[in-house]
């Protein structure tokens, strides 16, 4: 929305943080985003007037800030979020991309969509109801997706008289669960999204809380190290051969750096062929680069003509990914039609398209206890489990924990073409 009052010089030097909301239905996610936008002055007059009118029409009796993100007709009618809404705002410190996701279990796949690219997840809990199954499910999904920063916001503090006991109880409950998760950085904040306590400004109603506001955390969390700058990975999207007079012999490989730092002169290997050569140049339309790192989109030229096409991967000879056809994944199932053991699916991984067969369903995860369920192996909508697949061709991949791009796959139904599974590679 309006990226107001930030000088051009500052604006051009901001970094980018993507965050997502999570938590059970009606815990106040959309209201919180509305509040954050409103209090940081990222709402325009005409948007405000529009939601004031709608709130009045619906007899809310107050301005419903959730309407700022609940943009579909059906969402407004039902007062729930159905699909992710993306919103934008900036402070002099950072530029933010917000994915406001639905809490309703039926729409978990949309929550996963919003969370898959996030640096940080805000998980909301209703102070009256405490930690519920959806809180756990979403926190677990955030952990599986390797979101490294989580802010647990205990919301609706206004409805529990802003008492410290209510807050502490929920923090304790969540800690019991979250120590089983793989999230290194967790913050706890008592808030009222409706009234604005501790969202952008510090609440006077909770003197017992001496931590920071939500906005302060969002502005100051250290995200630069979330990217992998160690393992050089360059999946080839496209071979560029202009065949014009000016660039007659040009042959470049277009793609995005998905790991590590590449430099001209580096010795590289192309997969799957295994041929090696060195980098001649790394270019964009604007310049020749001395180095390229994630997430830059570049064109690479090499010193020897070796056979490389879309779907291949350029890596450093001394740091190669796994190359394998038998792979184990954690999978989030996203479709009404359950995962089919022995079934065949289209699989997409980096720039490769291939097919796979599901050879084994190892276990399903109990969302509340995180225990393995081994006697009921049906993976239905919103279930999470570990599976083994075999692919038609070798994949070049890293463990998802090491690299979110080279470690992720999607499964696509061969008949409906729908994306049915989100997979994170284990081995």
């Amino acid at each position, binding site marked *: *929305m*309006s*990226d*107001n*009052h930030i000088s*051009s010089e500052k604006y*051009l*030097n*901001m*970094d*980018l943080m993507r965050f997502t909301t999570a938590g059970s239905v009606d815990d106040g996610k959309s209201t919180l985003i509305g509040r954050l936008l409103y209090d940081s002055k990222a709402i*325009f*007059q*005409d948007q405000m007037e529009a939601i004031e009118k709608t709130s009045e029409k619906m007899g809310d009796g107050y301005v419903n800030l959730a309407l*700022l*993100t609940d*943009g*579909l*007709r*059906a969402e407004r009618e039902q007062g729930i979020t159905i*699909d*992710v*809404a*993306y*919103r*934008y705002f900036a402070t002099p410190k950072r530029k933010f991309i917000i994915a406001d996701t639905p809490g309703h279990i039926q729409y978990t*796949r*949309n929550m*996963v*969509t919003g969370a*898959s*690219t996030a640096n940080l997840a805000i998980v909301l809990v209703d102070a009256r109801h405490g930690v519920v199954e959806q809180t756990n499910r979403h926190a677990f999904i955030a952990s599986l997706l390797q979101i490294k920063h989580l802010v647990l916001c205990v919301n609706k503090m206004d409805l529990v008289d802003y008492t410290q006991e209510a807050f502490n109880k929920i923090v304790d409950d969540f800690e019991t669960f979250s120590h089983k998760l793989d999230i290194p950085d967790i913050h706890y904040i008592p808030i009222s999204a409706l009234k604005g306590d501790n969202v952008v400004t510090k609440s006077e109603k909770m003197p017992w809380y001496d931590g920071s506001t939500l906005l302060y955390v969002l502005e100051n969390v250290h995200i*630069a190290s979330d*990217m992998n700058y160690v393992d050089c990975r360059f999946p080839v*999207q*496209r071979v*560029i*051969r*202009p065949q*014009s007079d*000016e660039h007659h012999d040009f042959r470049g490989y*277009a793609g*995005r750096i998905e790991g590590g*730092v590449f430099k001209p002169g580096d010795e590289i290997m192309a997969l799957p062929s295994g041929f090696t050569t060195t980098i001649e140049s790394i270019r*964009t*339309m*604007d310049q020749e680069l001395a180095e390229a*790192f994630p*997430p830059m*989109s570049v064109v690479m030229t090499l010193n020897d003509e070796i056979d490389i096409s*879309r779907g291949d991967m350029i890596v450093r000879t001394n740091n190669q990914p796994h190359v394998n056809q038998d792979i184990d994944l954690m999978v989030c199932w*996203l479709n009404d039609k359950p995962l089919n053991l022995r079934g065949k699916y*289209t699989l997409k991984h980096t*720039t490769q398209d291939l097919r796979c067969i599901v050879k084994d369903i190892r276990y399903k995860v109990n969302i509340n206890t995180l225990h393995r369920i081994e006697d009921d192996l049906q993976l239905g909508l919103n279930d999470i489990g570990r599976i083994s697949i075999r692919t038609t061709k070798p994949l070049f991949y890293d463990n998802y924990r090491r690299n979110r791009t080279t470690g*992720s796959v*999607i499964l*696509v139904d061969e008949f409906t*073409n729908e*994306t049915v599974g*989100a997979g994170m590679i284990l081995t």
Partner: protein
Amino acid sequence: MHSYNLTHLKQLESEAIFIMREIASQFERPVLLFSGGKDSIIMVRLAQKAFWPAKIPFPLMHIDTEHNFPETIAFRDKMVDEVGARLIVRSVQDSINQGRVAEERGANASRNNLQTTTLLDALEEHQFDAAFGGARRDEEKARAKERFLSHRDEFGQWDPKNQRPELWNLLNGKKLPGEHFRVFPISNWTEMDVWQYIALENLEIPSIYFSHSRKVLDRNGILLAKCDFVSPLENESYTDRVVRFRTVGDMTCTGAVESNAGTLEAIIQEVASALVTERGARADDKRSEAAMEDRKKEGYF
């Protein structure tokens, strides 16, 4: 070790280039929908960067209502020439002449909705299977719900309640015959990002974005430019005002804003302190609360 940090605008640029390359490789017949407005000008620049030093590997297409600002059309032709791209123009007037659609009547008649039919017909005629658009999620609340890669059924319809999950950057472009996709590489850009990028890249834009003097009439708070397609109502009259346009649409529904901003730097200042959204001056969005959602469901841009 020094820090490897891309500024947010460079990250957005890279994301858009990544998407364009994916689509050009996954689809047989992509097309870039080009209106001559600032967003589509940026789209063309990004496409040049994505495939450089090769040419843009798909044509541009303009769905021309013939109610455009003449400045936009002149700019369009010049730009296409400079870029060396192929431009396809399909006209709403032809669709009207062929009886595919009927002209709206009344004072607020607009060809905005009619474009959908012309667009869908043109996509079918050329068998385009992916159409790039320069729509941004920050423009409008229904647009805020869009995926990068947005599925359209054989009738060109969008089903916002049942969109495909879109995970990480794995774009699933699989489809049945007759279906197509809309692709929005600059989904994550804000109006400010667009202006900053235009300044950074030194891009040329149509003159109507800059402050100029023009005869306008005030219709329900929307300043409409004097032209052949708008007739003043009884109590309306033209006045000379110093204005500019924040978006470029049809002359029948795109309102001007009063402004002295004559340079990019001044426009950026103005955008930074704007109190209303850029589409706040678009009569086509004011028709009803879900006007954009309804149009999009039918296959609008």
